[in-house]
Protein backbone atom coordinates (compact mmCIF):
# COMPACT_ATOMS: atom_id res chain seq x y z
CA UNK A 1 0.00 0.00 0.00
CA UNK A 2 1.47 3.34 -0.98
CA UNK A 3 1.79 5.95 1.71
CA UNK A 4 0.33 8.74 -0.44
CA UNK A 5 -2.99 7.00 -0.80
CA UNK A 6 -4.62 8.64 2.17
CA UNK A 7 -3.38 11.12 4.68
CA UNK A 8 -5.71 12.71 7.23
CA UNK A 9 -3.80 15.99 6.89
CA UNK A 10 -3.91 16.21 3.10
CA UNK A 11 -6.65 18.11 1.33
CA UNK A 12 -6.77 18.57 -2.45
CA UNK A 13 -6.28 22.35 -2.79
CA UNK A 14 -3.92 23.07 0.05
CA UNK A 15 -0.75 23.22 -2.04
CA UNK A 16 1.18 22.59 1.13
CA UNK A 17 4.49 22.13 -0.66
CA UNK A 18 4.29 25.53 -2.36
CA UNK A 19 3.34 27.19 0.90
CA UNK A 20 6.27 25.59 2.64
CA UNK A 21 8.64 26.86 -0.06
CA UNK A 22 7.26 30.41 0.19
CA UNK A 23 7.66 30.30 3.95
CA UNK A 24 11.28 29.19 3.65
CA UNK A 25 11.92 31.94 1.09
CA UNK A 26 10.58 34.69 3.31
CA UNK A 27 12.53 33.36 6.25
CA UNK A 28 15.71 33.42 4.18
CA UNK A 29 15.17 37.04 3.04
CA UNK A 30 14.61 38.18 6.62
CA UNK A 31 17.66 36.26 7.78
CA UNK A 32 19.80 37.85 5.05
CA UNK A 33 18.67 41.34 6.06
CA UNK A 34 19.64 40.69 9.65
CA UNK A 35 22.95 39.16 8.62
CA UNK A 36 23.71 42.16 6.44
CA UNK A 37 23.33 44.54 9.39
CA UNK A 38 25.70 42.46 11.52
CA UNK A 39 28.10 42.14 8.58
CA UNK A 40 28.26 45.90 8.01
CA UNK A 41 28.98 46.56 11.68
CA UNK A 42 31.66 43.89 11.62
CA UNK A 43 33.33 45.38 8.54
CA UNK A 44 33.27 48.90 9.98
CA UNK A 45 34.76 47.84 13.31
CA UNK A 46 37.32 45.60 11.67
CA UNK A 47 38.54 48.17 9.13
CA UNK A 48 38.63 50.97 11.69
CA UNK A 49 40.62 48.78 14.08
CA UNK A 50 42.99 47.67 11.31
CA UNK A 51 43.73 51.17 10.08
CA UNK A 52 44.16 52.57 13.56
CA UNK A 53 46.13 49.59 14.87
CA UNK A 54 49.48 51.41 14.59
CA UNK A 55 48.26 54.17 16.90
CA UNK A 56 46.42 51.92 19.36
CA UNK A 57 48.70 51.97 22.37
CA UNK A 58 48.81 53.33 25.86
CA UNK A 59 50.14 56.58 24.41
CA UNK A 60 46.76 57.13 22.80
CA UNK A 61 45.23 57.70 26.23
CA UNK A 62 48.17 59.34 28.02
CA UNK A 63 49.67 61.77 25.50
CA UNK A 64 48.11 64.82 23.91
CA UNK A 65 48.11 65.65 20.24
CA UNK A 66 51.27 67.24 18.95
CA UNK A 67 50.95 70.22 16.61
CA UNK A 68 50.79 69.25 12.98
CA UNK A 69 54.00 69.78 11.03
CA UNK A 70 56.05 67.94 13.63
CA UNK A 71 55.04 64.73 11.99
CA UNK A 72 57.94 62.71 13.36
CA UNK A 73 56.55 62.98 16.89
CA UNK A 74 53.72 60.58 17.78
CA UNK A 75 51.21 61.91 20.20
CA UNK A 76 47.94 60.55 21.58
CA UNK A 77 44.40 61.76 21.95
CA UNK A 78 44.36 62.29 25.72
CA UNK A 79 43.29 65.92 25.24
CA UNK A 80 40.36 64.83 23.08
CA UNK A 81 39.22 62.13 25.53
CA UNK A 82 39.30 64.62 28.40
CA UNK A 83 37.44 67.19 26.28
CA UNK A 84 34.73 64.73 25.21
CA UNK A 85 34.29 63.60 28.80
CA UNK A 86 33.83 67.18 29.99
CA UNK A 87 31.61 68.36 27.12
CA UNK A 88 29.34 65.28 27.17
CA UNK A 89 29.28 65.31 30.98
CA UNK A 90 28.17 68.94 31.07
CA UNK A 91 25.61 68.29 28.34
CA UNK A 92 24.16 65.41 30.39
CA UNK A 93 24.01 67.60 33.49
CA UNK A 94 22.00 70.16 31.52
CA UNK A 95 19.73 67.81 29.57
CA UNK A 96 18.99 65.08 32.13
CA UNK A 97 17.20 67.05 34.88
CA UNK A 98 15.30 69.16 32.39
CA UNK A 99 14.31 66.13 30.31
CA UNK A 100 13.07 64.24 33.37
CA UNK A 101 11.08 67.25 34.56
CA UNK A 102 9.50 67.65 31.12
CA UNK A 103 8.57 63.97 31.12
CA UNK A 104 7.08 64.16 34.62
CA UNK A 105 5.02 67.16 33.66
CA UNK A 106 3.82 65.59 30.42
CA UNK A 107 2.98 62.20 31.87
CA UNK A 108 1.77 63.03 35.38
CA UNK A 109 0.32 66.52 35.28
CA UNK A 110 -0.44 67.85 31.80
CA UNK A 111 -3.94 67.83 30.31
CA UNK A 112 -4.22 65.74 27.18
CA UNK A 113 -3.98 68.58 24.65
CA UNK A 114 -0.81 70.00 26.18
CA UNK A 115 0.61 66.50 26.43
CA UNK A 116 0.11 65.98 22.71
CA UNK A 117 1.59 69.38 21.89
CA UNK A 118 4.72 68.89 24.00
CA UNK A 119 5.29 65.38 22.65
CA UNK A 120 5.03 66.72 19.11
CA UNK A 121 7.47 69.51 19.95
CA UNK A 122 9.94 66.97 21.31
CA UNK A 123 9.63 64.89 18.15
CA UNK A 124 10.30 67.92 15.97
CA UNK A 125 13.26 68.91 18.12
CA UNK A 126 14.65 65.38 17.83
CA UNK A 127 14.44 65.75 14.06
CA UNK A 128 16.33 69.03 13.80
CA UNK A 129 19.69 68.37 12.06
CA UNK A 130 22.68 68.60 14.38
CA UNK A 131 24.39 71.20 12.20
CA UNK A 132 21.38 73.51 12.55
CA UNK A 133 21.61 73.25 16.32
CA UNK A 134 25.32 74.06 15.99
CA UNK A 135 24.57 77.22 14.03
CA UNK A 136 21.82 78.16 16.47
CA UNK A 137 24.15 77.92 19.47
CA UNK A 138 26.84 79.69 17.46
CA UNK A 139 24.61 82.69 16.90
CA UNK A 140 23.22 82.55 20.42
CA UNK A 141 26.43 82.16 22.46
CA UNK A 142 29.57 81.93 20.38
CA UNK A 143 29.22 85.24 18.55
CA UNK A 144 29.16 87.16 21.82
CA UNK A 145 31.16 84.94 24.17
CA UNK A 146 33.41 82.95 21.86
CA UNK A 147 33.86 79.20 21.67
CA UNK A 148 33.97 77.16 24.87
CA UNK A 149 33.19 73.71 26.22
CA UNK A 150 30.09 75.26 27.77
CA UNK A 151 28.81 76.31 24.34
CA UNK A 152 29.58 72.86 22.93
CA UNK A 153 27.88 71.17 25.88
CA UNK A 154 24.83 73.38 25.43
CA UNK A 155 24.58 72.40 21.76
CA UNK A 156 24.83 68.71 22.66
CA UNK A 157 22.28 69.09 25.45
CA UNK A 158 19.77 70.48 22.95
CA UNK A 159 20.30 67.27 20.99
CA UNK A 160 19.97 65.08 24.08
CA UNK A 161 16.92 66.73 25.56
CA UNK A 162 14.22 65.19 23.32
CA UNK A 163 15.79 61.74 23.69
CA UNK A 164 15.88 61.89 27.46
CA UNK A 165 12.37 63.31 27.66
CA UNK A 166 10.81 60.82 25.23
CA UNK A 167 12.36 57.75 26.85
CA UNK A 168 11.40 59.00 30.31
CA UNK A 169 7.81 59.59 29.18
CA UNK A 170 7.72 56.03 27.92
CA UNK A 171 8.96 54.50 31.18
CA UNK A 172 6.61 56.63 33.26
CA UNK A 173 3.73 55.39 31.11
CA UNK A 174 4.73 51.81 31.99
CA UNK A 175 4.08 52.41 35.69
CA UNK A 176 0.58 51.03 36.33
CA UNK A 177 -2.11 53.54 37.28
CA UNK A 178 -3.11 51.28 40.15
CA UNK A 179 0.08 52.35 41.95
CA UNK A 180 -0.74 56.03 41.48
CA UNK A 181 -4.28 55.39 42.71
CA UNK A 182 -2.92 53.54 45.73
CA UNK A 183 -0.78 56.50 46.69
CA UNK A 184 -3.48 59.10 46.01
CA UNK A 185 -5.96 56.90 47.89
CA UNK A 186 -4.14 57.33 51.20
CA UNK A 187 -4.40 61.09 50.74
CA UNK A 188 -1.03 61.83 49.18
CA UNK A 189 -0.80 64.87 46.93
CA UNK A 190 0.21 64.42 43.32
CA UNK A 191 3.84 65.46 43.74
CA UNK A 192 4.43 63.09 46.66
CA UNK A 193 2.92 60.29 44.63
CA UNK A 194 5.24 61.07 41.74
CA UNK A 195 8.38 61.45 43.82
CA UNK A 196 7.77 58.71 46.36
CA UNK A 197 6.06 55.98 44.37
CA UNK A 198 6.25 56.53 40.61
CA UNK A 199 9.82 57.78 40.13
CA UNK A 200 11.58 55.08 42.20
CA UNK A 201 9.99 52.54 39.87
CA UNK A 202 11.44 54.18 36.80
CA UNK A 203 15.00 55.12 37.75
CA UNK A 204 16.45 52.21 35.80
CA UNK A 205 14.49 53.17 32.73
CA UNK A 206 15.42 56.83 33.01
CA UNK A 207 19.10 55.92 33.32
CA UNK A 208 18.77 53.73 30.24
CA UNK A 209 17.42 56.68 28.30
CA UNK A 210 20.20 58.89 29.59
CA UNK A 211 22.91 56.39 28.64
CA UNK A 212 21.44 55.98 25.15
CA UNK A 213 21.31 59.76 24.75
CA UNK A 214 24.95 60.02 25.82
CA UNK A 215 25.90 57.32 23.31
CA UNK A 216 23.95 59.19 20.68
CA UNK A 217 25.66 62.58 21.15
CA UNK A 218 29.17 61.45 22.10
CA UNK A 219 29.97 61.00 18.42
CA UNK A 220 28.36 64.21 17.18
CA UNK A 221 30.72 66.45 15.23
CA UNK A 222 28.57 69.04 13.56
CA UNK A 223 27.32 70.97 16.62
CA UNK A 224 30.85 71.08 18.05
CA UNK A 225 32.50 72.44 14.90
CA UNK A 226 30.73 75.74 15.44
CA UNK A 227 30.95 75.89 19.17
CA UNK A 228 33.96 74.02 20.52
CA UNK A 229 36.62 73.24 17.92
CA UNK A 230 39.38 75.85 18.15
CA UNK A 231 41.21 74.08 20.95
CA UNK A 232 44.65 75.07 22.16
CA UNK A 233 47.53 72.64 22.31
CA UNK A 234 47.77 70.33 25.27
CA UNK A 235 45.25 68.80 27.65
CA UNK A 236 42.93 71.24 29.39
CA UNK A 237 40.19 70.75 31.97
CA UNK A 238 38.70 74.25 32.01
CA UNK A 239 35.24 74.21 30.40
CA UNK A 240 35.32 77.94 29.66
CA UNK A 241 37.96 77.16 27.02
CA UNK A 242 37.16 75.44 23.76
CA UNK A 243 38.30 71.83 24.39
CA UNK A 244 39.35 69.28 21.83
CA UNK A 245 36.88 66.40 21.45
CA UNK A 246 37.17 62.99 19.79
CA UNK A 247 34.78 63.62 16.87
CA UNK A 248 36.40 66.97 16.07
CA UNK A 249 39.86 65.43 16.43
CA UNK A 250 38.91 62.66 14.00
CA UNK A 251 37.53 65.26 11.62
CA UNK A 252 40.74 67.32 11.71
CA UNK A 253 43.27 64.48 11.76
CA UNK A 254 41.69 62.61 8.87
CA UNK A 255 42.32 65.70 6.80
CA UNK A 256 46.10 65.64 7.34
CA UNK A 257 48.61 64.30 4.87
CA UNK A 258 50.87 62.27 7.15
CA UNK A 259 49.93 58.66 7.92
CA UNK A 260 50.55 58.91 11.71
CA UNK A 261 47.81 61.53 12.01
CA UNK A 262 45.45 59.41 9.94
CA UNK A 263 46.20 56.35 12.06
CA UNK A 264 45.49 58.45 15.14
CA UNK A 265 42.11 59.43 13.66
CA UNK A 266 41.25 55.77 13.03
CA UNK A 267 42.33 54.81 16.53
CA UNK A 268 40.16 57.56 18.00
CA UNK A 269 37.23 56.32 15.92
CA UNK A 270 37.78 52.76 17.14
CA UNK A 271 37.78 53.82 20.79
CA UNK A 272 34.65 55.92 20.21
CA UNK A 273 32.81 52.99 18.59
CA UNK A 274 33.83 50.66 21.40
CA UNK A 275 32.78 53.14 24.09
CA UNK A 276 29.36 53.62 22.47
CA UNK A 277 28.97 49.85 22.13
CA UNK A 278 29.70 49.41 25.83
CA UNK A 279 27.28 52.20 26.75
CA UNK A 280 24.51 50.62 24.65
CA UNK A 281 25.11 47.20 26.21
CA UNK A 282 25.01 48.78 29.66
CA UNK A 283 21.78 50.55 28.76
CA UNK A 284 20.23 47.27 27.62
CA UNK A 285 21.15 45.59 30.84
CA UNK A 286 19.66 48.47 32.85
CA UNK A 287 16.51 48.40 30.72
CA UNK A 288 15.78 44.70 31.22
CA UNK A 289 16.43 45.05 34.92
CA UNK A 290 14.06 47.98 35.35
CA UNK A 291 11.36 46.42 33.18
CA UNK A 292 11.44 43.32 35.36
CA UNK A 293 11.11 45.54 38.42
CA UNK A 294 8.04 47.31 37.03
CA UNK A 295 6.51 44.01 35.95
CA UNK A 296 6.87 42.68 39.45
CA UNK A 297 5.18 45.76 40.87
CA UNK A 298 2.21 45.48 38.54
CA UNK A 299 1.88 41.70 38.80
Amino acid sequence: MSAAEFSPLQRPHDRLRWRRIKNRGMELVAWLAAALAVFILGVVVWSVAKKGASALSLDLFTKSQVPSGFSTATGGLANAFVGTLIVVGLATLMALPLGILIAIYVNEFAPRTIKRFVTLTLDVLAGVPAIVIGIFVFSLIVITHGQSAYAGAFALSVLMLPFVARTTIEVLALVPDSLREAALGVGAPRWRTTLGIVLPQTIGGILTGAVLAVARVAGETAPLLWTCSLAQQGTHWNPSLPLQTIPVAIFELSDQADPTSQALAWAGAFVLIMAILCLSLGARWLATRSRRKIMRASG
Partner: protein
Amino acid sequence: MSQSEMSQTRGEPVSESSTIEAAVRVETKRQPLPPRERLHQVFDIQDLTAIYGSKPALKDVSMEVYKNLVTAVIGPSGCGKSTFIRCLNRMNDLVPSFRQTGTIRYHGQDIAAKDVDPVAVRRTIGMVFQRPNPFPKSIQDNVTWGLKVLGMKDNLSERVERALTQAALWDEVKDRLKASALGLSGGQQQRLCIARAIAVEPDVVLMDEPASALDPIATQKIEQLLHELKQEYTFVIVTHNMQQAARVADMTAFFSISRGEEGERWGELIEYDETEKIFTAPSDKRTEDYVTGRFG
Protein backbone atom coordinates in the same frame (compact mmCIF):
# COMPACT_ATOMS: atom_id res chain seq x y z
CA MET B 1 -28.67 6.66 50.87
CA SER B 2 -32.12 7.52 49.63
CA GLN B 3 -33.19 10.80 48.11
CA SER B 4 -35.10 11.92 51.17
CA GLU B 5 -32.21 11.20 53.48
CA MET B 6 -29.90 13.24 51.30
CA SER B 7 -32.09 16.26 51.36
CA GLN B 8 -32.39 15.90 55.11
CA THR B 9 -28.65 15.76 55.65
CA ARG B 10 -28.27 18.88 53.56
CA GLY B 11 -30.62 20.41 56.06
CA GLU B 12 -32.18 22.99 53.78
CA PRO B 13 -35.55 24.10 55.07
CA VAL B 14 -38.03 24.24 52.25
CA SER B 15 -40.39 27.11 52.82
CA GLU B 16 -43.18 27.59 50.38
CA SER B 17 -44.47 30.53 52.31
CA SER B 18 -41.89 33.09 51.19
CA THR B 19 -43.07 34.73 48.02
CA ILE B 20 -39.56 35.15 46.61
CA GLU B 21 -37.08 32.34 46.36
CA ALA B 22 -33.97 34.33 47.03
CA ALA B 23 -30.91 32.77 45.46
CA VAL B 24 -29.01 34.24 48.36
CA ARG B 25 -29.74 33.78 52.03
CA VAL B 26 -29.16 36.69 54.32
CA GLU B 27 -27.39 35.87 57.53
CA THR B 28 -29.94 36.29 60.25
CA LYS B 29 -27.62 36.70 63.21
CA ARG B 30 -27.15 40.39 62.45
CA GLN B 31 -28.62 42.97 64.80
CA PRO B 32 -31.73 44.70 63.55
CA LEU B 33 -30.96 48.24 62.40
CA PRO B 34 -32.38 51.19 64.30
CA PRO B 35 -34.79 53.34 62.29
CA ARG B 36 -33.02 55.35 59.63
CA GLU B 37 -33.78 58.76 61.07
CA ARG B 38 -31.81 57.79 64.16
CA LEU B 39 -28.75 56.81 62.13
CA HIS B 40 -26.02 59.35 61.55
CA GLN B 41 -25.61 60.32 57.90
CA VAL B 42 -22.07 60.29 56.53
CA PHE B 43 -22.94 60.87 52.90
CA ASP B 44 -26.05 62.52 51.56
CA ILE B 45 -25.96 62.12 47.80
CA GLN B 46 -28.42 64.06 45.68
CA ASP B 47 -28.99 63.66 41.93
CA LEU B 48 -25.48 62.45 41.22
CA THR B 49 -24.84 62.13 37.49
CA ALA B 50 -21.46 60.99 36.23
CA ILE B 51 -20.36 61.41 32.63
CA TYR B 52 -17.35 60.07 30.75
CA GLY B 53 -16.85 62.20 27.66
CA SER B 54 -20.40 62.48 26.39
CA LYS B 55 -21.65 59.16 27.74
CA PRO B 56 -23.45 59.23 31.06
CA ALA B 57 -22.25 56.34 33.22
CA LEU B 58 -24.63 57.06 36.04
CA LYS B 59 -27.80 59.15 36.24
CA ASP B 60 -29.59 60.83 39.11
CA VAL B 61 -28.42 58.77 42.05
CA SER B 62 -29.78 59.91 45.39
CA MET B 63 -29.05 57.98 48.56
CA GLU B 64 -27.54 58.27 52.00
CA VAL B 65 -24.71 56.36 53.63
CA TYR B 66 -24.88 55.83 57.37
CA LYS B 67 -22.15 55.87 59.95
CA ASN B 68 -20.62 52.61 61.23
CA LEU B 69 -22.55 50.52 58.78
CA VAL B 70 -21.40 48.49 55.83
CA THR B 71 -23.20 49.70 52.73
CA ALA B 72 -22.99 47.39 49.74
CA VAL B 73 -23.46 48.45 46.14
CA ILE B 74 -24.51 45.57 43.90
CA GLY B 75 -25.60 45.28 40.31
CA PRO B 76 -24.68 43.84 36.93
CA SER B 77 -21.46 44.74 35.08
CA GLY B 78 -21.53 48.21 33.59
CA CYS B 79 -24.15 49.61 35.94
CA GLY B 80 -21.81 52.27 37.28
CA LYS B 81 -21.06 50.76 40.70
CA SER B 82 -17.35 51.54 40.49
CA THR B 83 -17.98 54.96 39.01
CA PHE B 84 -20.31 55.68 41.90
CA ILE B 85 -17.90 54.68 44.64
CA ARG B 86 -15.04 56.54 42.96
CA CYS B 87 -17.16 59.71 43.01
CA LEU B 88 -17.23 59.50 46.81
CA ASN B 89 -13.52 60.25 47.17
CA ARG B 90 -12.95 62.18 43.95
CA MET B 91 -10.93 59.34 42.42
CA ASN B 92 -12.61 60.03 39.07
CA ASP B 93 -10.79 63.36 38.94
CA LEU B 94 -7.90 61.36 37.51
CA VAL B 95 -9.93 60.49 34.42
CA PRO B 96 -9.47 63.38 31.97
CA SER B 97 -12.90 63.28 30.29
CA PHE B 98 -14.87 62.80 33.49
CA ARG B 99 -17.57 65.22 34.67
CA GLN B 100 -20.17 64.99 37.40
CA THR B 101 -23.19 66.94 38.48
CA GLY B 102 -25.27 66.84 41.63
CA THR B 103 -24.16 67.10 45.21
CA ILE B 104 -22.38 64.70 47.55
CA ARG B 105 -22.73 66.03 51.07
CA TYR B 106 -20.15 64.54 53.38
CA HIS B 107 -21.10 65.45 56.96
CA GLY B 108 -22.90 68.39 55.39
CA GLN B 109 -20.11 69.64 53.13
CA ASP B 110 -20.44 69.23 49.39
CA ILE B 111 -17.28 67.38 48.35
CA ALA B 112 -18.26 67.31 44.71
CA ALA B 113 -17.77 71.08 44.50
CA LYS B 114 -14.91 72.35 42.39
CA ASP B 115 -13.22 74.33 45.14
CA VAL B 116 -12.85 71.30 47.43
CA ASP B 117 -9.33 69.87 47.43
CA PRO B 118 -9.52 66.22 46.34
CA VAL B 119 -6.41 65.43 48.38
CA ALA B 120 -8.22 66.51 51.55
CA VAL B 121 -11.21 64.35 50.55
CA ARG B 122 -9.10 61.25 49.95
CA ARG B 123 -7.27 61.82 53.19
CA THR B 124 -10.44 61.19 55.22
CA ILE B 125 -12.13 58.86 52.74
CA GLY B 126 -9.73 56.01 52.06
CA MET B 127 -9.95 53.40 49.38
CA VAL B 128 -9.16 49.74 48.78
CA PHE B 129 -9.03 48.69 45.16
CA GLN B 130 -10.15 45.69 43.17
CA ARG B 131 -6.68 44.32 42.57
CA PRO B 132 -4.28 44.36 45.51
CA ASN B 133 -1.88 47.22 44.75
CA PRO B 134 0.75 47.38 47.49
CA PHE B 135 3.63 49.76 46.93
CA PRO B 136 6.79 48.01 45.74
CA LYS B 137 8.29 48.62 49.16
CA SER B 138 8.63 46.64 52.35
CA ILE B 139 5.54 45.57 54.29
CA GLN B 140 6.29 48.13 56.97
CA ASP B 141 6.92 50.95 54.48
CA ASN B 142 3.60 50.23 52.81
CA VAL B 143 1.86 51.22 56.03
CA THR B 144 4.20 54.03 57.03
CA TRP B 145 4.37 55.77 53.65
CA GLY B 146 0.92 57.28 54.00
CA LEU B 147 1.58 58.15 57.64
CA LYS B 148 4.77 59.98 56.73
CA VAL B 149 3.13 61.83 53.86
CA LEU B 150 0.36 62.99 56.17
CA GLY B 151 2.79 64.00 58.92
CA MET B 152 1.63 61.33 61.42
CA LYS B 153 5.21 60.54 62.31
CA ASP B 154 4.85 59.84 66.02
CA ASN B 155 4.79 56.23 67.26
CA LEU B 156 5.23 54.86 63.78
CA SER B 157 5.91 51.29 64.89
CA GLU B 158 2.86 51.25 67.17
CA ARG B 159 0.68 52.59 64.37
CA VAL B 160 2.03 49.90 62.04
CA GLU B 161 1.28 47.16 64.54
CA ARG B 162 -2.18 48.49 65.22
CA ALA B 163 -3.11 48.80 61.55
CA LEU B 164 -1.75 45.37 60.69
CA THR B 165 -3.50 43.83 63.69
CA GLN B 166 -6.80 45.43 62.69
CA ALA B 167 -6.32 44.06 59.21
CA ALA B 168 -5.70 40.58 60.72
CA LEU B 169 -2.28 40.42 59.13
CA TRP B 170 0.03 41.13 62.08
CA ASP B 171 0.65 37.53 63.12
CA GLU B 172 1.53 36.52 59.59
CA VAL B 173 4.04 39.30 58.92
CA LYS B 174 5.37 40.47 62.29
CA ASP B 175 8.65 38.61 61.75
CA ARG B 176 9.28 39.97 58.29
CA LEU B 177 8.14 43.57 58.30
CA LYS B 178 11.19 44.54 56.27
CA ALA B 179 10.43 42.01 53.51
CA SER B 180 8.96 43.16 50.23
CA ALA B 181 5.20 43.42 50.16
CA LEU B 182 5.24 41.94 46.68
CA GLY B 183 6.27 38.59 48.18
CA LEU B 184 2.95 38.27 50.02
CA SER B 185 0.05 36.22 48.67
CA GLY B 186 -2.84 38.01 46.98
CA GLY B 187 -5.04 37.81 50.05
CA GLN B 188 -2.26 39.05 52.31
CA GLN B 189 -1.53 41.88 49.89
CA GLN B 190 -5.16 42.95 49.96
CA ARG B 191 -5.21 42.91 53.77
CA LEU B 192 -2.02 44.96 53.67
CA CYS B 193 -3.85 47.44 51.46
CA ILE B 194 -6.62 47.55 54.03
CA ALA B 195 -4.03 48.12 56.76
CA ARG B 196 -2.49 50.89 54.67
CA ALA B 197 -5.91 52.50 54.24
CA ILE B 198 -6.90 52.38 57.92
CA ALA B 199 -3.44 53.32 59.24
CA VAL B 200 -4.06 56.96 58.35
CA GLU B 201 -7.25 56.88 60.46
CA PRO B 202 -9.81 57.66 57.79
CA ASP B 203 -13.46 58.21 58.50
CA VAL B 204 -14.79 56.16 55.61
CA VAL B 205 -13.20 53.29 53.73
CA LEU B 206 -14.39 52.67 50.18
CA MET B 207 -13.85 49.20 48.77
CA ASP B 208 -14.11 48.53 45.07
CA GLU B 209 -14.70 44.78 44.72
CA PRO B 210 -11.98 44.09 47.29
CA ALA B 211 -12.27 40.32 47.13
CA SER B 212 -12.90 39.72 43.46
CA ALA B 213 -9.29 38.74 42.80
CA LEU B 214 -9.04 36.54 45.89
CA ASP B 215 -9.73 32.91 46.73
CA PRO B 216 -12.66 31.98 49.02
CA ILE B 217 -10.57 31.73 52.19
CA ALA B 218 -8.94 35.12 51.69
CA THR B 219 -12.38 36.50 50.83
CA GLN B 220 -13.79 35.14 54.06
CA LYS B 221 -11.02 36.78 56.06
CA ILE B 222 -11.74 40.14 54.50
CA GLU B 223 -15.45 39.79 55.16
CA GLN B 224 -14.78 39.00 58.82
CA LEU B 225 -12.63 42.10 58.98
CA LEU B 226 -15.51 44.24 57.82
CA HIS B 227 -17.70 42.95 60.65
CA GLU B 228 -15.08 43.89 63.22
CA LEU B 229 -13.87 47.15 61.72
CA LYS B 230 -17.26 48.73 61.21
CA GLN B 231 -17.30 49.65 64.89
CA GLU B 232 -14.67 52.23 63.98
CA TYR B 233 -15.17 53.02 60.34
CA THR B 234 -17.91 53.40 57.80
CA PHE B 235 -17.62 51.11 54.78
CA VAL B 236 -18.99 51.37 51.30
CA ILE B 237 -18.28 48.21 49.35
CA VAL B 238 -18.88 47.50 45.70
CA THR B 239 -19.36 43.86 44.92
CA HIS B 240 -20.62 41.77 42.04
CA ASN B 241 -21.03 38.92 44.47
CA MET B 242 -24.53 38.93 45.94
CA GLN B 243 -23.69 36.38 48.61
CA GLN B 244 -20.96 38.70 49.77
CA ALA B 245 -23.33 41.65 49.99
CA ALA B 246 -25.81 39.49 51.90
CA ARG B 247 -23.11 38.39 54.33
CA VAL B 248 -21.42 41.69 55.08
CA ALA B 249 -23.75 44.56 54.36
CA ASP B 250 -26.26 46.31 56.61
CA MET B 251 -27.64 48.40 53.76
CA THR B 252 -27.65 47.42 50.12
CA ALA B 253 -28.06 49.56 47.04
CA PHE B 254 -29.03 47.86 43.80
CA PHE B 255 -27.86 49.55 40.62
CA SER B 256 -28.95 48.49 37.17
CA ILE B 257 -28.56 49.48 33.55
CA SER B 258 -31.26 51.55 31.90
CA ARG B 259 -31.58 51.89 28.16
CA GLY B 260 -32.74 55.01 26.37
CA GLU B 261 -34.75 55.21 23.16
CA GLU B 262 -31.67 55.52 20.98
CA GLY B 263 -29.94 52.56 22.56
CA GLU B 264 -27.81 54.59 24.97
CA ARG B 265 -27.14 52.95 28.33
CA TRP B 266 -26.52 54.33 31.74
CA GLY B 267 -26.44 53.12 35.31
CA GLU B 268 -29.22 53.91 37.72
CA LEU B 269 -29.99 53.33 41.37
CA ILE B 270 -33.02 51.05 41.41
CA GLU B 271 -33.52 50.33 45.06
CA TYR B 272 -31.77 51.11 48.31
CA ASP B 273 -32.82 49.51 51.54
CA GLU B 274 -31.79 47.30 54.40
CA THR B 275 -29.93 44.27 53.08
CA GLU B 276 -32.49 41.84 54.44
CA LYS B 277 -35.29 43.65 52.66
CA ILE B 278 -33.40 43.83 49.37
CA PHE B 279 -32.79 40.10 49.39
CA THR B 280 -36.09 38.85 50.79
CA ALA B 281 -38.74 41.39 49.92
CA PRO B 282 -37.53 43.85 47.33
CA SER B 283 -40.10 46.37 46.21
CA ASP B 284 -38.88 46.62 42.63
CA LYS B 285 -39.32 43.86 40.08
CA ARG B 286 -35.82 44.45 38.66
CA THR B 287 -34.23 43.97 42.07
CA GLU B 288 -36.20 40.78 42.54
CA ASP B 289 -35.07 39.46 39.15
CA TYR B 290 -31.47 40.21 40.00
CA VAL B 291 -31.33 38.75 43.50
CA THR B 292 -33.20 35.62 42.47
CA GLY B 293 -30.72 35.10 39.65
CA ARG B 294 -33.10 35.60 36.76
CA PHE B 295 -31.04 38.47 35.42
CA GLY B 296 -27.47 39.61 35.56
